[in-house]
């Protein structure tokens, strides 16, 4: 018999529950005086380089109802396509852009609205460039394991058509679920957790 590999198992996920705000955005749910501000917002300041854009997002359940207790975290490259992370080996990212955001939905409307910069392009492992995108991680009551997806930009049709992740999807008619249309400076991204318009989620 061979030796055991001896690896540990990842801690099992559990839902973030309906009161996720207490831990992750306490000021947002009226617990003030513990942290000076909630982490992860705003994404940009006056010195951040790049084109400012707004994103409006809603997340719908299988009945078409927007989730009002959802929390989304965003992770993206800076305007030059560099990540502000120790694992980024290609160069130093914009020091005025952390690249990570955390946004609870409005408790009445379910809407999430934030400002960011449009990210630059980042390579796929084989060297081809991916289209600009924002990685998303979605947690809420009723979601047992955080859901991963990406938001691509509707005015980047040429880059999207050649994107190494989008082009490998077997069901090409589902690509549209990952692309946010642009109107002025605002991208609107509707995420459907379930049903005919179900958003593509990733096992990454």
């Amino acid at each position: 018999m061979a030796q055991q590999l001896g690896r540990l198992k990842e801690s099992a996920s559990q839902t973030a529950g309906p009161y996720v705000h207490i831990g992750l955005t306490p000021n947002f749910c009226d617990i003030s005086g513990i942290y000076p501000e909630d982490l992860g917002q705003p994404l940009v300041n006056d010195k951040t380089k790049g084109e400012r854009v707004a994103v409006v997002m809603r997340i719908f359940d299988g009945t078409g109802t927007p989730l009002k207790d959802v929390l989304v975290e965003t992770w993206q490259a800076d305007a030059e396509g560099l990540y502000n992370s120790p694992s980024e080996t290609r160069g130093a990212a914009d020091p005025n852009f952390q690249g990570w955001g955390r946004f609870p939905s409005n408790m009445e409307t379910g809407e999430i609205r934030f400002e960011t910069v449009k990210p630059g392009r980042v390579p796929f492992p084989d060297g081809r460039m991916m289209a600009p995108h924002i990685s998303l991680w979605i947690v809420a009551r009723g979601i047992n394991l955080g859901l991963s997806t990406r938001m691509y930009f509707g005015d980047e049709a040429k880059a999207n058509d050649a994107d190494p992740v989008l082009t490998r999807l077997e069901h090409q008619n589902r690509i549209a679920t990952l692309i946010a249309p642009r109107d002025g400076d605002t991208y609107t991204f509707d995420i459907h957790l379930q049903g005919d318009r179900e958003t593509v989620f990733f096992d990454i």
Partner: protein
Amino acid sequence: MRNDRPETGGFFQRDRLWHPPALTPGYKTSVVRSPQRAPIAFPHTLSEVTGPTFGRQILGELDNDLTLNYARPGESAMGPRIIVYGRVLDERGVGMSNVLVEFWQANAGGRYRHKKDGYLAPLDPNFGGCGRTITDEDGNYAFRTIMPGAYPWPNGINDWRPAHIHFSVFGHGFVQRLITQMYFEGDPMIWQCPIVATIPDRRAVEGLIAALDMQATVPMDARAYKFDIVLRGRRSTLFENRLEGN
């Protein structure tokens, strides 16, 4: 002194049979919030293997003491005083340094400080319910709090959550991001809970149960529970322009 380079390899695949599946009808809210189509896999890129880091300058002096961080001067939260400590490791057993750990919980009576919680157990004026810390060089973390109470929730007609503390953990890559819940050794409610029961493998549940550690207590002050958190392991080989391997 350490001169380790930051790791840049891809991560081990997540074992989705170990985690709860999306659809777990015993936990009713999951029914309309679970994707029906299979999630799509692709090789990790920089978008997945990179992730945010947080410096210790974000931490306030009382961020890891829930008995005091919302209390009026000279007072403290009501309830059994405990210390929760442990390590954040990856699946290789490597301690994860400098990762942000956040936690939140109900008070000793099972009441959350949240406007959507209408449970009749009262709020504790000296208890907010959130805390955070950053692991040290070896992956250790610790915080002080009070033991949360069990509380009822509208799922079945008589469902109660076991006492638990929610944990949110960052690794070094965005795909290590994890939210889970910690339970307490010996609590009979664990094995009745529809949220715990979303986890298919009993060993995975046991991995979420903190052990009472009398050696780590502070006598005449607080008992201690040990809770290790394991995040996804990472391949060691450099990533760019090379095939992944180990």
